[in-house]
Protein backbone atom coordinates (compact mmCIF):
# COMPACT_ATOMS: atom_id res chain seq x y z
CA UNK A 1 0.00 0.00 0.00
CA UNK A 2 2.79 2.36 1.01
CA UNK A 3 4.68 1.43 -2.16
CA UNK A 4 1.65 2.36 -4.28
CA UNK A 5 1.34 5.72 -2.53
CA UNK A 6 5.04 6.45 -3.15
CA UNK A 7 4.63 5.50 -6.81
CA UNK A 8 1.59 7.77 -7.19
CA UNK A 9 3.44 10.66 -5.52
CA UNK A 10 6.44 10.17 -7.81
CA UNK A 11 4.19 10.22 -10.87
CA UNK A 12 2.46 13.35 -9.59
CA UNK A 13 5.79 15.14 -9.09
CA UNK A 14 6.91 14.06 -12.56
CA UNK A 15 3.65 15.34 -14.07
CA UNK A 16 3.98 18.70 -12.28
CA UNK A 17 7.57 18.97 -13.50
CA UNK A 18 6.53 18.24 -17.06
CA UNK A 19 3.67 20.73 -16.91
CA UNK A 20 5.97 23.41 -15.45
CA UNK A 21 8.53 22.82 -18.21
CA UNK A 22 5.83 22.93 -20.86
CA UNK A 23 4.41 26.14 -19.40
CA UNK A 24 7.86 27.77 -19.39
CA UNK A 25 8.49 26.74 -22.99
CA UNK A 26 5.06 28.02 -23.98
CA UNK A 27 5.66 31.32 -22.19
CA UNK A 28 9.04 31.69 -23.92
CA UNK A 29 7.67 30.95 -27.36
CA UNK A 30 4.81 33.40 -26.94
CA UNK A 31 6.95 36.24 -25.58
CA UNK A 32 8.15 38.43 -28.47
CA UNK A 33 10.94 39.97 -26.40
CA UNK A 34 12.39 36.49 -25.86
CA UNK A 35 12.40 36.00 -29.63
CA UNK A 36 14.10 39.37 -30.15
CA UNK A 37 16.77 38.51 -27.59
CA UNK A 38 17.38 35.21 -29.36
CA UNK A 39 17.57 37.06 -32.67
CA UNK A 40 20.29 39.31 -31.26
CA UNK A 41 22.45 36.28 -30.58
CA UNK A 42 21.48 34.50 -33.79
CA UNK A 43 22.53 37.29 -36.19
CA UNK A 44 25.98 37.27 -34.65
CA UNK A 45 26.66 33.64 -33.78
CA UNK A 46 24.81 31.66 -36.44
CA UNK A 47 26.87 30.60 -39.44
CA UNK A 48 24.96 30.94 -42.67
CA UNK A 49 25.34 31.05 -46.42
CA UNK A 50 22.64 32.07 -48.88
CA UNK A 51 21.11 34.48 -51.35
CA UNK A 52 19.49 37.64 -50.09
CA UNK A 53 17.10 39.84 -52.00
CA UNK A 54 17.32 43.46 -51.00
CA UNK A 55 14.33 45.52 -52.09
CA UNK A 56 14.23 49.29 -51.80
CA UNK A 57 12.38 51.96 -53.75
CA UNK A 58 10.94 49.25 -56.00
CA UNK A 59 14.43 48.12 -56.97
CA UNK A 60 15.67 44.68 -56.07
CA UNK A 61 19.24 43.54 -55.73
CA UNK A 62 20.40 39.96 -55.23
CA UNK A 63 23.34 39.40 -52.92
CA UNK A 64 25.28 36.27 -52.05
CA UNK A 65 26.13 36.31 -48.35
CA UNK A 66 28.36 34.19 -46.11
CA UNK A 67 28.73 34.66 -42.36
CA UNK A 68 30.74 32.75 -39.77
CA UNK A 69 31.45 33.29 -36.10
CA UNK A 70 34.38 31.44 -34.57
CA UNK A 71 36.67 32.21 -31.63
CA UNK A 72 34.78 35.45 -31.09
CA UNK A 73 35.56 36.74 -34.59
CA UNK A 74 32.89 37.61 -37.17
CA UNK A 75 33.79 36.89 -40.79
CA UNK A 76 31.44 37.92 -43.57
CA UNK A 77 31.37 38.12 -47.31
CA UNK A 78 28.77 39.82 -49.50
CA UNK A 79 28.81 39.76 -53.28
CA UNK A 80 26.42 41.92 -55.32
CA UNK A 81 25.08 39.73 -58.10
CA UNK A 82 24.54 42.58 -60.52
CA UNK A 83 25.69 46.11 -61.23
CA UNK A 84 29.33 46.77 -60.51
CA UNK A 85 29.92 43.47 -58.66
CA UNK A 86 30.62 45.14 -55.32
CA UNK A 87 32.15 42.71 -52.86
CA UNK A 88 32.45 43.18 -49.11
CA UNK A 89 34.91 41.09 -47.11
CA UNK A 90 34.80 41.40 -43.34
CA UNK A 91 37.39 39.90 -41.02
CA UNK A 92 36.62 40.93 -37.45
CA UNK A 93 36.29 44.68 -37.43
CA UNK A 94 38.23 45.29 -40.63
CA UNK A 95 36.14 45.50 -43.75
CA UNK A 96 37.35 45.60 -47.34
CA UNK A 97 34.86 46.85 -49.93
CA UNK A 98 36.12 45.74 -53.32
CA UNK A 99 34.95 47.78 -56.31
CA UNK A 100 36.12 45.80 -59.36
CA UNK A 101 34.91 48.35 -61.90
CA UNK A 102 37.01 51.04 -60.25
CA UNK A 103 39.86 48.70 -59.38
CA UNK A 104 39.67 50.08 -55.85
CA UNK A 105 39.33 48.79 -52.31
CA UNK A 106 37.77 50.84 -49.50
CA UNK A 107 39.00 49.85 -46.06
CA UNK A 108 36.57 50.53 -43.20
CA UNK A 109 36.27 49.72 -39.51
CA UNK A 110 32.94 48.23 -38.40
CA UNK A 111 32.23 47.94 -34.71
CA UNK A 112 31.51 44.69 -32.90
CA UNK A 113 27.80 45.37 -32.50
CA UNK A 114 27.06 45.64 -36.18
CA UNK A 115 26.49 42.62 -38.38
CA UNK A 116 24.87 42.43 -41.78
CA UNK A 117 21.49 41.69 -40.29
CA UNK A 118 21.52 43.62 -37.03
CA UNK A 119 18.42 45.57 -37.94
CA UNK A 120 17.31 46.23 -34.40
CA UNK A 121 19.39 47.65 -31.57
CA UNK A 122 21.00 45.54 -28.91
CA UNK A 123 19.13 44.87 -25.67
CA UNK A 124 20.82 47.80 -23.92
CA UNK A 125 19.07 50.20 -26.30
CA UNK A 126 15.84 48.29 -26.65
CA UNK A 127 12.87 50.49 -27.43
CA UNK A 128 10.41 51.46 -24.76
CA UNK A 129 6.82 52.47 -24.69
CA UNK A 130 6.67 53.99 -28.19
CA UNK A 131 6.14 50.59 -29.82
CA UNK A 132 4.11 47.42 -29.43
CA UNK A 133 5.80 44.14 -30.24
CA UNK A 134 3.73 41.07 -31.00
CA UNK A 135 3.91 37.66 -32.63
CA UNK A 136 1.54 37.77 -35.59
CA UNK A 137 1.55 34.29 -37.09
CA UNK A 138 3.61 31.40 -38.33
CA UNK A 139 4.79 31.64 -41.90
CA UNK A 140 7.32 30.17 -44.30
CA UNK A 141 10.36 31.96 -45.74
CA UNK A 142 13.15 30.47 -47.87
CA UNK A 143 11.68 27.03 -47.31
CA UNK A 144 11.87 27.30 -43.52
CA UNK A 145 9.27 27.71 -40.80
CA UNK A 146 9.23 31.21 -39.37
CA UNK A 147 7.43 33.30 -36.78
CA UNK A 148 6.34 36.74 -37.95
CA UNK A 149 6.94 39.47 -35.37
CA UNK A 150 5.49 42.95 -35.76
CA UNK A 151 6.97 46.07 -34.17
CA UNK A 152 4.26 48.72 -34.40
CA UNK A 153 4.83 52.36 -33.46
CA UNK A 154 2.13 54.22 -31.53
CA UNK A 155 2.32 57.33 -33.70
CA UNK A 156 3.42 58.58 -37.10
CA UNK A 157 6.85 59.79 -35.98
CA UNK A 158 8.58 56.45 -36.52
CA UNK A 159 8.57 53.40 -38.73
CA UNK A 160 7.57 49.87 -37.81
CA UNK A 161 9.17 46.54 -38.59
CA UNK A 162 7.97 43.11 -39.59
CA UNK A 163 10.50 40.38 -38.91
CA UNK A 164 10.25 36.74 -39.88
CA UNK A 165 12.39 34.74 -37.43
CA UNK A 166 13.46 31.20 -38.16
CA UNK A 167 11.55 29.00 -35.71
CA UNK A 168 14.56 26.81 -35.04
CA UNK A 169 17.36 29.37 -34.73
CA UNK A 170 15.58 32.77 -34.35
CA UNK A 171 17.62 34.03 -37.31
CA UNK A 172 15.80 36.83 -39.23
CA UNK A 173 14.95 35.31 -42.60
CA UNK A 174 13.04 38.39 -43.74
CA UNK A 175 12.81 41.95 -42.46
CA UNK A 176 10.58 44.77 -43.63
CA UNK A 177 10.76 48.42 -42.67
CA UNK A 178 7.13 49.56 -42.58
CA UNK A 179 6.06 53.11 -43.39
CA UNK A 180 3.23 55.03 -41.79
CA UNK A 181 0.87 53.84 -44.55
CA UNK A 182 1.56 50.21 -43.70
CA UNK A 183 3.57 49.54 -46.86
CA UNK A 184 7.11 48.15 -46.84
CA UNK A 185 9.77 50.81 -47.51
CA UNK A 186 12.74 48.49 -47.43
CA UNK A 187 12.96 44.76 -47.36
CA UNK A 188 15.62 42.12 -46.92
CA UNK A 189 14.66 38.52 -47.50
CA UNK A 190 16.49 35.30 -48.04
CA UNK A 191 15.59 33.43 -51.23
CA UNK A 192 17.60 30.46 -49.98
CA UNK A 193 19.75 29.89 -46.91
CA UNK A 194 21.84 27.23 -45.18
CA UNK A 195 22.05 27.69 -41.43
CA UNK A 196 24.77 26.28 -39.19
CA UNK A 197 26.40 24.26 -41.97
CA UNK A 198 30.16 23.94 -42.19
CA UNK A 199 31.56 26.79 -44.28
CA UNK A 200 34.94 26.40 -45.94
CA UNK A 201 37.43 29.26 -45.52
CA UNK A 202 37.59 29.71 -49.29
CA UNK A 203 33.94 30.85 -49.25
CA UNK A 204 35.10 33.95 -47.36
CA UNK A 205 38.04 34.78 -49.64
CA UNK A 206 37.84 37.63 -52.19
CA UNK A 207 36.67 36.65 -55.66
CA UNK A 208 39.00 39.17 -57.28
CA UNK A 209 42.74 39.55 -57.33
CA UNK A 210 43.31 43.02 -55.89
CA UNK A 211 47.01 43.08 -56.73
CA UNK A 212 46.87 46.21 -58.88
CA UNK A 213 43.96 47.88 -57.08
CA UNK A 214 44.12 51.23 -55.32
CA UNK A 215 43.46 51.08 -51.59
CA UNK A 216 41.62 53.79 -49.66
CA UNK A 217 41.27 54.08 -45.91
CA UNK A 218 37.90 55.44 -44.82
CA UNK A 219 38.58 55.28 -41.10
CA UNK A 220 39.80 58.90 -40.90
CA UNK A 221 36.89 60.29 -42.88
CA UNK A 222 35.54 62.33 -40.00
CA UNK A 223 37.35 63.99 -37.13
CA UNK A 224 35.17 64.13 -34.02
CA UNK A 225 35.39 65.42 -30.46
CA UNK A 226 32.87 65.18 -27.63
CA UNK A 227 31.21 68.43 -26.58
CA UNK A 228 28.30 69.74 -24.58
CA UNK A 229 25.78 71.82 -26.45
CA UNK A 230 22.86 74.03 -25.53
CA UNK A 231 21.01 73.29 -28.77
CA UNK A 232 17.66 71.65 -27.99
CA UNK A 233 14.41 70.93 -29.78
CA UNK A 234 11.45 72.85 -28.39
CA UNK A 235 9.05 70.22 -29.71
CA UNK A 236 10.83 66.88 -29.77
CA UNK A 237 8.55 63.96 -30.76
CA UNK A 238 7.63 61.87 -27.72
CA UNK A 239 10.07 59.20 -26.67
CA UNK A 240 13.18 60.67 -28.31
CA UNK A 241 16.09 61.59 -26.07
CA UNK A 242 19.69 62.73 -26.56
CA UNK A 243 22.09 59.79 -26.89
CA UNK A 244 25.32 61.57 -27.78
CA UNK A 245 26.64 65.01 -28.66
CA UNK A 246 29.88 65.76 -30.39
CA UNK A 247 31.53 68.08 -32.86
CA UNK A 248 32.54 66.71 -36.19
CA UNK A 249 34.72 68.12 -38.94
CA UNK A 250 33.40 67.35 -42.37
CA UNK A 251 35.87 66.39 -45.05
CA UNK A 252 35.23 69.38 -47.28
CA UNK A 253 36.35 72.09 -44.90
CA UNK A 254 37.75 73.16 -41.56
CA UNK A 255 34.39 73.96 -40.01
CA UNK A 256 33.27 71.83 -37.09
CA UNK A 257 29.60 70.84 -37.11
CA UNK A 258 27.69 70.01 -33.92
CA UNK A 259 26.16 66.53 -34.20
CA UNK A 260 23.40 65.57 -31.76
CA UNK A 261 22.03 62.00 -31.90
CA UNK A 262 18.46 61.46 -30.72
CA UNK A 263 16.92 58.01 -30.28
CA UNK A 264 13.68 56.51 -29.05
CA UNK A 265 15.57 53.24 -28.56
CA UNK A 266 14.84 52.03 -32.06
CA UNK A 267 14.65 55.01 -34.42
CA UNK A 268 17.66 57.34 -34.55
CA UNK A 269 17.78 60.94 -35.75
CA UNK A 270 20.99 62.94 -36.14
CA UNK A 271 20.85 66.73 -36.01
CA UNK A 272 23.75 68.64 -37.58
CA UNK A 273 24.16 72.31 -36.65
CA UNK A 274 26.54 74.35 -38.82
CA UNK A 275 27.27 78.02 -39.34
CA UNK A 276 25.08 79.35 -42.14
CA UNK A 277 26.94 79.70 -45.42
CA UNK A 278 26.11 81.18 -48.80
CA UNK A 279 23.98 78.75 -50.78
CA UNK A 280 22.60 76.85 -47.77
CA UNK A 281 18.99 75.86 -48.32
CA UNK A 282 15.86 74.75 -46.53
CA UNK A 283 13.99 71.67 -47.65
CA UNK A 284 13.70 67.93 -47.56
CA UNK A 285 15.42 65.02 -49.23
CA UNK A 286 15.38 61.27 -48.91
CA UNK A 287 17.49 58.24 -49.65
CA UNK A 288 15.41 55.09 -49.47
CA UNK A 289 13.73 55.03 -46.06
CA UNK A 290 16.00 57.76 -44.69
CA UNK A 291 14.77 61.33 -44.69
CA UNK A 292 16.50 64.63 -44.11
CA UNK A 293 15.22 68.14 -43.54
CA UNK A 294 17.31 71.32 -43.50
CA UNK A 295 16.19 74.52 -41.81
CA UNK A 296 17.78 77.89 -41.27
CA UNK A 297 17.68 78.87 -37.60
CA UNK A 298 19.15 82.33 -37.03
CA UNK A 299 22.64 82.26 -38.46
CA UNK A 300 22.83 78.47 -38.37
CA UNK A 301 22.00 75.75 -40.86
CA UNK A 302 20.26 72.87 -39.06
CA UNK A 303 19.78 69.47 -40.74
CA UNK A 304 17.99 66.47 -39.21
CA UNK A 305 18.66 63.03 -40.78
CA UNK A 306 17.23 59.65 -39.89
CA UNK A 307 15.44 56.50 -40.95
CA UNK A 308 12.15 58.00 -39.81
CA UNK A 309 9.16 59.60 -41.60
CA UNK A 310 9.70 62.99 -43.23
CA UNK A 311 7.46 64.68 -40.64
CA UNK A 312 9.83 63.63 -37.84
CA UNK A 313 13.01 65.16 -39.30
CA UNK A 314 11.08 68.29 -40.32
CA UNK A 315 9.65 68.77 -36.83
CA UNK A 316 12.99 68.23 -35.15
CA UNK A 317 14.98 70.42 -37.56
CA UNK A 318 12.53 73.32 -37.46
CA UNK A 319 12.20 73.33 -33.67
CA UNK A 320 15.90 73.31 -32.81
CA UNK A 321 16.79 76.36 -30.75
CA UNK A 322 20.14 77.93 -29.99
CA UNK A 323 21.40 78.12 -26.38
Amino acid at each position, binding site marked *: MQFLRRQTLARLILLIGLLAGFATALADSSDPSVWLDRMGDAVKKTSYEGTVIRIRDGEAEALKVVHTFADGVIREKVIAQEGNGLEIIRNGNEVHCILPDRKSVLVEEWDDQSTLFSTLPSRDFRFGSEYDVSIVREDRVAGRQANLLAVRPHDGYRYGYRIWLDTETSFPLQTQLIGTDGAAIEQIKFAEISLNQEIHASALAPSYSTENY*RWFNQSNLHVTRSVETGWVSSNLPQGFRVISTHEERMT*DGDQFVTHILYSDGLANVSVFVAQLEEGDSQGESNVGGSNAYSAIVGDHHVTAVGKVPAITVEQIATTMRAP
Partner: protein
Amino acid sequence: MQISAFVDGELPDNEADLLLRRMGQDAELRHRVAEYLAIGRALRGEISVPGVDRIHERVSAEIDDKPLEDLIATAGSPPTSAIRPLAGAAVAATVALLAIFGLQQTTSVDESDAKTLAGSVAATDAGYTVPQPLDEQLRQYYMSHGATATEFGANGINSRFVSLRMSEETLQDPADDEETAPAEDTEEQPTQP
Protein backbone atom coordinates in the same frame (compact mmCIF):
# COMPACT_ATOMS: atom_id res chain seq x y z
CA MET B 1 1.60 30.39 -56.26
CA GLN B 2 -0.91 32.20 -58.46
CA ILE B 3 1.18 35.38 -58.27
CA SER B 4 4.31 33.52 -59.26
CA ALA B 5 2.53 32.06 -62.31
CA PHE B 6 1.16 35.48 -63.20
CA VAL B 7 4.60 37.09 -63.00
CA ASP B 8 6.01 34.30 -65.15
CA GLY B 9 3.28 34.92 -67.74
CA GLU B 10 1.94 31.41 -67.24
CA LEU B 11 -1.41 32.18 -65.61
CA PRO B 12 -4.46 31.44 -67.83
CA ASP B 13 -6.22 34.55 -69.13
CA ASN B 14 -9.35 34.17 -67.03
CA GLU B 15 -7.35 33.72 -63.82
CA ALA B 16 -5.05 36.62 -64.76
CA ASP B 17 -8.09 38.87 -65.24
CA LEU B 18 -9.42 37.83 -61.86
CA LEU B 19 -6.08 38.52 -60.21
CA LEU B 20 -5.83 41.94 -61.83
CA ARG B 21 -9.31 42.79 -60.53
CA ARG B 22 -8.36 41.65 -57.03
CA MET B 23 -5.23 43.81 -57.19
CA GLY B 24 -7.49 46.81 -57.65
CA GLN B 25 -8.99 46.22 -54.23
CA ASP B 26 -6.20 44.64 -52.26
CA ALA B 27 -3.16 46.72 -51.37
CA GLU B 28 -1.39 43.76 -49.81
CA LEU B 29 -1.80 41.79 -53.02
CA ARG B 30 -0.43 44.69 -55.08
CA HIS B 31 2.54 44.82 -52.77
CA ARG B 32 3.15 41.09 -53.12
CA VAL B 33 2.98 41.24 -56.91
CA ALA B 34 5.40 44.16 -56.97
CA GLU B 35 7.70 42.18 -54.73
CA TYR B 36 7.56 39.14 -56.99
CA LEU B 37 8.32 41.25 -60.02
CA ALA B 38 11.27 42.86 -58.31
CA ILE B 39 12.61 39.56 -57.03
CA GLY B 40 12.23 38.03 -60.48
CA ARG B 41 14.28 40.81 -61.98
CA ALA B 42 16.96 40.51 -59.36
CA LEU B 43 17.30 36.76 -59.58
CA ARG B 44 17.23 36.56 -63.34
CA GLY B 45 19.04 39.80 -64.04
CA GLU B 46 16.35 40.72 -66.54
CA ILE B 47 15.27 44.19 -67.52
CA SER B 48 11.81 42.90 -68.28
CA VAL B 49 9.83 39.93 -67.03
CA PRO B 50 6.77 38.36 -68.63
CA GLY B 51 4.40 39.65 -65.94
CA VAL B 52 5.46 43.23 -66.63
CA ASP B 53 4.95 42.79 -70.36
CA ARG B 54 1.53 41.38 -69.69
CA ILE B 55 0.64 44.34 -67.53
CA HIS B 56 1.78 46.69 -70.28
CA GLU B 57 -0.42 44.84 -72.75
CA ARG B 58 -3.37 45.17 -70.40
CA VAL B 59 -2.74 48.85 -69.84
CA SER B 60 -2.41 49.51 -73.55
CA ALA B 61 -5.43 47.43 -74.50
CA GLU B 62 -7.84 48.77 -71.93
CA ILE B 63 -6.92 52.40 -71.50
CA ASP B 64 -5.78 53.67 -74.85
CA ASP B 65 -4.64 57.25 -74.35
CA LYS B 66 -5.27 57.77 -70.68
CA PRO B 67 -2.24 59.58 -69.18
CA LEU B 68 -0.16 57.34 -66.96
CA GLU B 69 -0.27 59.92 -64.16
CA ASP B 70 -4.05 59.59 -64.09
CA LEU B 71 -3.74 55.84 -63.76
CA ILE B 72 -1.36 56.10 -60.86
CA ALA B 73 -3.57 58.65 -59.12
CA THR B 74 -6.55 56.36 -59.61
CA ALA B 75 -4.66 53.45 -58.10
CA GLY B 76 -4.41 55.20 -54.76
CA SER B 77 -8.17 55.83 -54.51
CA PRO B 78 -10.76 53.41 -53.21
CA PRO B 79 -12.51 51.66 -56.12
CA THR B 80 -15.91 53.12 -56.95
CA SER B 81 -18.40 51.74 -59.43
CA ALA B 82 -17.31 54.37 -61.94
CA ILE B 83 -13.63 53.52 -61.86
CA ARG B 84 -13.84 49.85 -61.05
CA PRO B 85 -13.33 48.63 -64.63
CA LEU B 86 -10.10 50.59 -64.79
CA ALA B 87 -8.86 49.83 -61.33
CA GLY B 88 -7.02 46.63 -62.16
CA ALA B 89 -5.14 48.08 -65.07
CA ALA B 90 -4.43 51.31 -63.21
CA VAL B 91 -2.89 49.48 -60.30
CA ALA B 92 -1.04 47.24 -62.72
CA ALA B 93 0.52 50.33 -64.26
CA THR B 94 1.75 51.35 -60.84
CA VAL B 95 3.17 47.90 -60.28
CA ALA B 96 4.84 47.99 -63.67
CA LEU B 97 6.39 51.35 -62.90
CA LEU B 98 7.59 50.04 -59.57
CA ALA B 99 9.10 47.01 -61.19
CA ILE B 100 10.71 48.78 -64.11
CA PHE B 101 11.95 52.06 -62.74
CA GLY B 102 12.17 52.39 -58.99
CA LEU B 103 12.68 55.80 -57.48
CA GLN B 104 16.10 57.15 -56.78
CA GLN B 105 16.83 59.48 -53.92
CA THR B 106 14.85 62.64 -54.30
CA THR B 107 15.23 66.14 -53.08
CA SER B 108 12.75 68.96 -52.92
CA VAL B 109 13.60 72.47 -51.96
CA ASP B 110 11.36 74.94 -50.21
CA GLU B 111 10.79 77.51 -52.93
CA SER B 112 9.48 80.07 -50.49
CA ASP B 113 12.95 80.41 -49.11
CA ALA B 114 15.08 82.94 -50.93
CA LYS B 115 18.24 81.04 -50.17
CA THR B 116 18.25 78.04 -52.48
CA LEU B 117 20.82 75.40 -53.03
CA ALA B 118 23.22 76.52 -55.71
CA GLY B 119 22.69 74.59 -58.89
CA SER B 120 19.73 72.64 -57.58
CA VAL B 121 16.47 72.06 -59.38
CA ALA B 122 13.55 73.19 -57.25
CA ALA B 123 10.41 71.13 -56.94
CA THR B 124 7.66 72.30 -59.27
CA ASP B 125 4.78 71.51 -56.98
CA ALA B 126 4.17 70.35 -53.46
CA GLY B 127 3.35 66.77 -54.37
CA TYR B 128 6.23 66.09 -56.66
CA THR B 129 9.94 65.83 -56.02
CA VAL B 130 12.68 66.02 -58.58
CA PRO B 131 15.40 63.35 -58.54
CA GLN B 132 18.80 64.96 -58.37
CA PRO B 133 22.26 64.28 -56.96
CA LEU B 134 22.72 64.80 -53.27
CA ASP B 135 24.48 67.94 -52.15
CA GLU B 136 27.98 67.01 -50.88
CA GLN B 137 27.26 68.33 -47.39
CA LEU B 138 24.03 66.34 -47.19
CA ARG B 139 25.80 63.22 -48.45
CA GLN B 140 28.28 63.54 -45.60
CA TYR B 141 25.44 64.03 -43.12
CA TYR B 142 23.75 60.84 -44.30
CA MET B 143 27.04 58.92 -44.01
CA SER B 144 27.87 60.37 -40.62
CA HIS B 145 24.41 59.52 -39.32
CA GLY B 146 24.73 55.96 -40.63
CA ALA B 147 28.08 55.50 -38.92
CA THR B 148 26.91 57.00 -35.62
CA ALA B 149 23.65 55.04 -35.52
CA THR B 150 25.62 51.86 -36.17
CA GLU B 151 27.42 52.33 -32.87
CA PHE B 152 24.11 51.61 -31.19
CA GLY B 153 23.56 48.42 -33.15
CA ALA B 154 20.49 49.69 -34.96
CA ASN B 155 21.80 49.22 -38.43
CA GLY B 156 21.84 46.58 -41.06
CA ILE B 157 22.80 45.74 -44.55
CA ASN B 158 20.57 48.38 -46.13
CA SER B 159 22.28 51.21 -44.28
CA ARG B 160 25.64 49.68 -45.05
CA PHE B 161 24.90 49.66 -48.72
CA VAL B 162 23.67 53.25 -48.72
CA SER B 163 26.93 54.30 -47.05
CA LEU B 164 29.01 52.21 -49.41
CA ARG B 165 27.28 53.55 -52.49
CA MET B 166 27.91 57.04 -51.17
CA SER B 167 31.55 56.18 -50.48
CA GLU B 168 31.91 55.02 -54.05
CA GLU B 169 30.93 58.48 -55.23
CA THR B 170 33.97 59.94 -53.52
CA LEU B 171 36.33 57.80 -55.54
CA GLN B 172 37.72 58.91 -58.84
CA ASP B 173 37.37 56.69 -61.85
CA PRO B 174 40.76 55.13 -62.69
CA ALA B 175 40.13 55.97 -66.33
CA ASP B 176 39.92 59.64 -65.39
CA ASP B 177 42.95 59.49 -63.21
CA GLU B 178 45.77 57.31 -64.43
CA GLU B 179 48.15 58.95 -61.96
CA THR B 180 46.19 57.23 -59.16
CA ALA B 181 45.96 60.34 -57.03
CA PRO B 182 43.66 59.71 -54.06
CA ALA B 183 40.22 61.25 -53.91
CA GLU B 184 40.07 64.44 -51.89
CA ASP B 185 38.37 63.01 -48.84
CA THR B 186 40.02 59.63 -48.64
CA GLU B 187 43.45 58.54 -47.62
CA GLU B 188 45.18 56.29 -50.10
CA GLN B 189 47.25 53.45 -48.77
CA PRO B 190 50.54 53.02 -50.64
CA THR B 191 50.61 49.28 -50.20
CA GLN B 192 48.18 46.49 -49.67
CA PRO B 193 47.74 45.22 -46.13
